[in-house]
């Protein structure tokens, strides 16, 4: 039995498998499949300062080896999260990451302040949501805006701060550097790639928002490439995600440069996927006489 535990920004995870924000709610539903302590952590559904109802349906479309979604950050608001969901989550024996999104930099700061007074383990700055009109990805697509929001939130945040990066950019490595330079403790990547699917008979996009975020196995090679590029550019840890479906994908993402992983879309076909992936990674480590999963991180041998 290899050691699967990892540390990100001083926070210890039992294993590197974290449920990805937006796919796992606040954990209660998947907690009806297995004890959430089997997961390294949970990145909660993105929360905003005030309640949001999200976009009109349809909010999802299936695409080759993936899905497009445009939920639009439906959530009950940060106060309800702190009062109703966080106390329960903290009893589940797993790392709790609060994912926050705002319309303005000030809103991000206000949420970071509120959450800093709770026992949330980490805060993940969602500056990469492609499905809302204001906020979201608008903060995440230039070095200047990423640096600025990271700096401002950092000043209001007493928790380890993860900046979640958008792949919908020209040079993700320089954006990661901007986050690192202004005090991010880690980056998580990648959020979804903006996509579109049109019904050829009605000529309407399937998703009411017209465009949505692409996730699932289809984006995995893009995610691996970006994690590798970013790992060459920054020193802070990377939480890798984007289409991880099998334990082999997980190992590949770690080798590319990730310290921990988030698992999302595969949950929809197999709710047990994170547990199966953890078991598979463990077996790979044992079979290769590797004592700790941390030994895989960033060991790619590029040509």
């Amino acid at each position, binding site marked *: 039995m290899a050691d699967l535990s990892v540390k990100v920004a001083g926070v210890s995870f039992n294993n590197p498998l974290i449920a990805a924000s*937006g*796919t*796992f*709610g606040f954990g209660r*539903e*998947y907690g*009806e*499949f*297995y004890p959430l302590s089997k997961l390294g952590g949970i990145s909660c*559904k993105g929360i905003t300062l005030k309640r949001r*109802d*999200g*976009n*009109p*349906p*349809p*909010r*999802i*479309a*299936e695409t080759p*080896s*993936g*899905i497009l*979604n445009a*939920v639009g950050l*439906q959530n009950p608001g940060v106060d309800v999260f702190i009062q109703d969901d966080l106390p329960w989550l903290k009893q589940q024996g797993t790392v709790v990451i609060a994912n926050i999104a705002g319309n303005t930099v000030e809103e991000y700061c206000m949420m970071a302040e509120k959450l800093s007074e709770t026992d949330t383990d980490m805060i993940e700055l969602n500056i990469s949501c492609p499905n809302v009109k204001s906020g979201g990805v608008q903060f995440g697509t230039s070095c200047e805006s990423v640096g600025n929001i990271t700096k401002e939130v950092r000043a209001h945040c007493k928790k380890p701060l993860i900046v979640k990066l958008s792949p919908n950019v020209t040079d993700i490595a320089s954006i990661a550097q901007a986050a690192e330079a202004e005090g991010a403790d880690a980056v998580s990547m990648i959020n979804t790639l903006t996509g579109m699917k049109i019904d050829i008979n009605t000529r309407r996009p*399937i998703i009411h928002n017209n465009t949505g975020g692409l996730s*699932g*196995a289809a984006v995995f090679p893009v995610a691996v490439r970006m994690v590798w590029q970013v790992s060459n550019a920054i020193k802070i840890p990377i939480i890798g995600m984007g289409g991880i479906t099998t334990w082999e994908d997980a190992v590949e993402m770690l080798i590319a440069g990730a310290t921990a992983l988030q698992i999302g*879309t595969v*949950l*929809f*076909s*197999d*709710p*047990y996927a994170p547990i199966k992936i953890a078991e598979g990674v463990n077996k790979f480590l044992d079979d290769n006489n590797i004592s700790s999963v941390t030994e895989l991180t960033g060991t790619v041998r590029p040509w």
Partner: protein
Amino acid sequence: MKYDIRKLRLISNEKIADGIYDMRLEYGDGEIPVACGQFAHVYVPGKSLRRPISVCDARGGELRLVYQVKGEGTKIMSQMKAEETVDVLAPLGNGFNIEKGRRYALIGGGIGVPPMLYTAAKCENPLVITGFRNESLVILQDDFVKAGAELLLCTDDGTAGKKGFVTDLIRENIGRVDEVCACGPTPMLKAIAQVCREFGKPCQISLEERMACGIGACLVCAVKVRKNGEEIMQHVCKNGPVFNAEEVVF
């Protein structure tokens, strides 16, 4: 643990009408813990999403799913063969609330008809109203008779049963029932809800929306409902698929 994924043996998977298939799965011993109107989330090899299919029947140790081939996922389902195993997450959602001592009208339109079979089996002397576009799509008529239902049939073009819509038939017969349960296309449900409101009859409707997790975590299958005077987003998979028609904002 509330949720259960089972690998069920496929007993048969037959075409019963134009584009409509009848999948029977062996559930095992004992009564299947499924309420009428709940759904099963079926894993489709090679696809990113499961396919939510309402339970047509759950008597006799068999889980029966009658579904329409609409896209790639249901096409793959239609090609599954007897003796294969099917990975099913069920039961999910909230079904129809059936009380003793009340007479129900159960209305199905098109592929909204199948969930009404198990619902009929749970009702005393129900009035079942089924509507289809044409004769080639008519399904489950014998099954409803066997379940003890009083059965009415209509088609849009009159090629089977009465020519017309289920809304016409419920309007003619609403005085004979205490409550209405319906499943079918949204315009049909909206029209039925209107008739029920007019006659002061309670109405439960089963909704459909593009879905992912099936358990209320991912929030994609949103439906707008009115609760205590406020419009909020609920979800077909967790809060539904059956809703009080008076609360749904069409």
